């Protein structure tokens, strides 16, 4: 954002403009019900590797998602533009699709307006960060890595965006956000380490800290030794915990999947599904995550308890799914109408414990310390069996001390069951990209089914 143009093009002006556009589209629509989701923003990403910037990109992007309803028949069309022609075309296309579709006897109508409290999710300085600021940040990571003879790769990303949702039942909400994300993968010979951070403000990220942290892990992970696959107690750092939690959300926490019987929580709400030490919730209004005041149907975000003390309490819904499940309103987790997935919790939290990460390692007789996972995928959704690799720092711990790095291992594990074997968690919660806010945890008896050569 050019500072002098702030008043004219700042977030408040953009919100007003998108709301006005949305209202006009709804007003001009020939459908019985119309919902318009409009987004406008800019994203910049600087990528570096081998100590130099090798990709450096920016884009200004817009999106419109139109949902039109006629006689309970629903059509959706999208356009990556806010130009009048493109919006008219999307609106006409959505209507044409609706007219060609079969009626949905379960269609509950679009959701009504509900009060939405604003959030502070926008930082003007992050929106204004230029290519030099990102290059300087990258240089900070590179320099910190080189102090420990490491070579850094990673990203520095800044973005700003505005989202508005308007519908024919009175919903008309908008908000603006910024987001800054950076990560560092540092290699020291055959060792590698990782650090990452995400925030509303670029100024909340610390290049030197990221570079140093990744370099320290890289230094320690040199000369990894082979370790036989098997069952090990494991301390998982927050990046690894976040990956498991997001995959669990993907297979388990969608109301649509529960209704269709393909979630492991189908028919099990109210039942014990994992250990009592496991409490997971979603809250887009918690200042520890990246704030979002409403979902993609314009319904207010609110805290949703997913698993409490090991008991499955609820799953995420949009308006359609909530009504089909007999609820009056949704949980505020709608995805855009263009997404067949319908609903998903996107701001996950996991309850911490009483330890520190250092204590968790220090109390371990024999086990592994895992920095993060790579390429996790679902083997069996009903059993929540995931497989993936460790990477960027996997260590053997004996008698509470790291004894040496080990070559990366493949785990194949029922994650809901594994979470039930958590026997310690850090008090401190860490925000990792996703976003997820999670502790470091120690899990007993994690199954490692294979190993690689590095």
């Amino acid at each position: 954002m050019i500072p002098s143009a702030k008043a004219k093009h700042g977030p408040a002006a953009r919100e007003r403009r998108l709301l006005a556009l949305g209202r006009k589209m709804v007003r001009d629509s020939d459908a019985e019900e119309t919902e318009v989701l409009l987004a406008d923003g800019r994203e910049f990403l600087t990528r570096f590797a081998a100590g130099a910037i090798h990709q450096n990109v920016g884009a200004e992007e817009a999106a419109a998602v139109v949902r039109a309803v006629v006689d309970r028949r629903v059509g959706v069309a999208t356009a990556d533009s806010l130009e009048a022609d493109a919006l008219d075309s999307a609106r006409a296309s959505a209507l044409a699709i609706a007219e060609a579709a079969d009626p949905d006897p379960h269609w509950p109508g679009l959701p009504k307006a509900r009060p939405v409290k604003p959030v502070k999710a926008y930082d003007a300085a992050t929106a204004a960060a230029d290519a030099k600021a990102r290059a300087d940040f990258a240089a900070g990571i590179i320099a910190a890595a080189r102090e420990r003879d490491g070579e850094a790769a990673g990203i520095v990303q800044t973005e700003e965006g505005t989202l508005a949702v308007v519908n024919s039942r009175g919903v008309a909400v908008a908000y603006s956000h910024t987001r800054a994300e950076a990560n560092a993968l540092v290699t020291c010979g055959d060792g590698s380490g990782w650090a990452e951070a995400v925030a509303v403000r670029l100024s909340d990220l610390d290049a030197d800290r990221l570079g140093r942290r990744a370099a320290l892990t890289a230094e320690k992970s040199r000369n990894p030794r082979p370790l036989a696959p098997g069952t090990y107690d494991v301390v998982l750092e927050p990046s690894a915990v976040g990956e498991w939690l997001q995959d669990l959300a993907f297979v388990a926490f969608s109301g649509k999947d529960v209704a269709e019987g393909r979630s492991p929580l189908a028919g099990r709400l109210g039942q014990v599904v994992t250990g009592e030490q496991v409490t997971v919730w979603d809250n887009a209004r918690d200042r520890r995550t990246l704030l979002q005041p409403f979902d993609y149907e314009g319904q207010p975000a609110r805290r949703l308890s997913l698993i409490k003390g090991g008991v499955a309490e609820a799953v995420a819904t949009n308006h359609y799914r909530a009504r089909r499940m007999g609820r009056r309103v949704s949980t505020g987790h709608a995805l855009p109408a263009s997404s067949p997935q319908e609903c998903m919790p996107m701001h996950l939290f996991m309850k911490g414990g009483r330890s520190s990460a250092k204590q968790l390692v220090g109390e371990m007789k024999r086990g592994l310390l895992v920095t993060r996972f790579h390429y996790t995928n679902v083997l069996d959704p009903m059993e929540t069996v995931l497989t993936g690799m460790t990477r960027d720092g996997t260590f053997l711990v004996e008698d509470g001390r790291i004894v040496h790095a080990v070559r990366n291992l493949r785990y194949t594990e029922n994650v809901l069951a594994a979470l039930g074997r958590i026997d310690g968690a850090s008090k401190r919660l860490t925000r990792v990209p996703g976003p997820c806010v999670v502790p470091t945890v120690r899990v007993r008896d994690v199954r490692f089914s294979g190993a690689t050569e590095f």
Partner: protein
Amino acid sequence: MDDLLERTVGLMEQAGASYGDVRLRRDRTERLSVQNGRPEHVARSASAGIGVRVLVDGAWGFFGTHRLQDAAVEEAVRQAVDIAQASAAAQTEPVRLAPLEPATDTYETPHTRDPLAVALEEKLDLLVRATEAMAGPNVRLAQAFFSAFDTRQQFASTEGSRIAQHIVQTGGGIAATCIADGRLQVRSYPNSFRGNFATGGYEYVEAMDLAGEAPRVAEEAQALLAAPPCPAGRRTVILDGGQLALQVHESCGHPIELDRVLGMEIAFAGDSFLTLDKLDTFRYGSERVNIAADATCPGGLGTFGYDDEGVPAQKTPIVEAGRLVGYLSSRETAPAIGRPSSGTMRASGWNRIPLIRMTNVNLLPGDAGSLDDLVADTDDGLLMMTNRSWSIDNKRLNFQFGTEMCREIRSGRLGQVYRDATYTGLTPEFWASCDAVCGPEAWSLWGTPNCGKGQPGQTARVGHGVAPARFRNVQVGVKA
């Protein structure tokens, strides 16, 4: 619109770019899902914008905008140049591009029926009939899918290339999901995850005969519910086309991307075990293994006329008689191996820079006849069919795949059905164990429409031609 391109080229030259290119791209897509006899999701999208890429002081800058007015394009060039100058400040070696003869040309995907022009009612009717034909006692979800992608792109570079392309890609498929006693089994046709995809028109989906295949798919899904799990052990394995295509994709296609090999992707998807010192010497697989990257093969999902740097589509040998002989490259990376670009740079849209992407990375046919012939030639083994899950390490060595269905092979005949089959291994060992590849009669193209790479993330549509193949001594049956 030609004026806008020429004006952009002029602006890049005026700004001091030693090289610049601009892509004006319009995408239209349609995605249809039918579930249990009624349309569940019907969505169309349209996107148009311009992407400007410049080399200034030996460094890259890129900016994309959805606004197609003169002022917006001027701003895009200014942004791209500013970004390039910031890149240059943290540059160790200036970017040098492999030479390229400028081209002025047009290309269009051969197709008979424009998939977006076919009436929505006709397409939905085809899908509805397919799901109705999958009805059965435990079939909880009978789903049918259709997707179409229409891309029109104009490319211009400061070197003088002017290329217009129209790429049409179409796909479809069916899936039966059976759920009982807490178990879920899915059987798909012709491939999992929304079916199979190709460059071509609606005729590609019509030829699938989705409704005709639907009863078999539903029966197999129900058989899987009752089937025992695949036993663990070291076994001889035959992979069918759909699974083998993904095996090629993950264990060959990605590690031969030269940007990965050079470390450019290390912080995200990873690098590659196929380091530069291995070129022309490394034994990637057995002598039965021959792989080529071919952007020219008719119908391949990764088939086009020119890549997004204006390099003509071509066929590049990758593995010959088991030996690594080539990489997928770009104009920037090709000098590292002393060769011209292999023409694989593609962007997912106007708002993304081109990256090295698979074209059609094909396992060339062997001499083992049909799949039936290969099964008949196998005394004791397993036939694994249709991908269900995948995972591979960040150098592309240790992999694990799951398949929808598995059949026991005894004395050359198919027997017991197994569910939840998985296999795992290390890439060079696995390909070294390949002792038979079926012949041209069994060779077909598979489309992978969801290949993720890069930051910001990009999804590419790529292809793999394969014939079923046999592998010895494979670890099977990994379970939590």
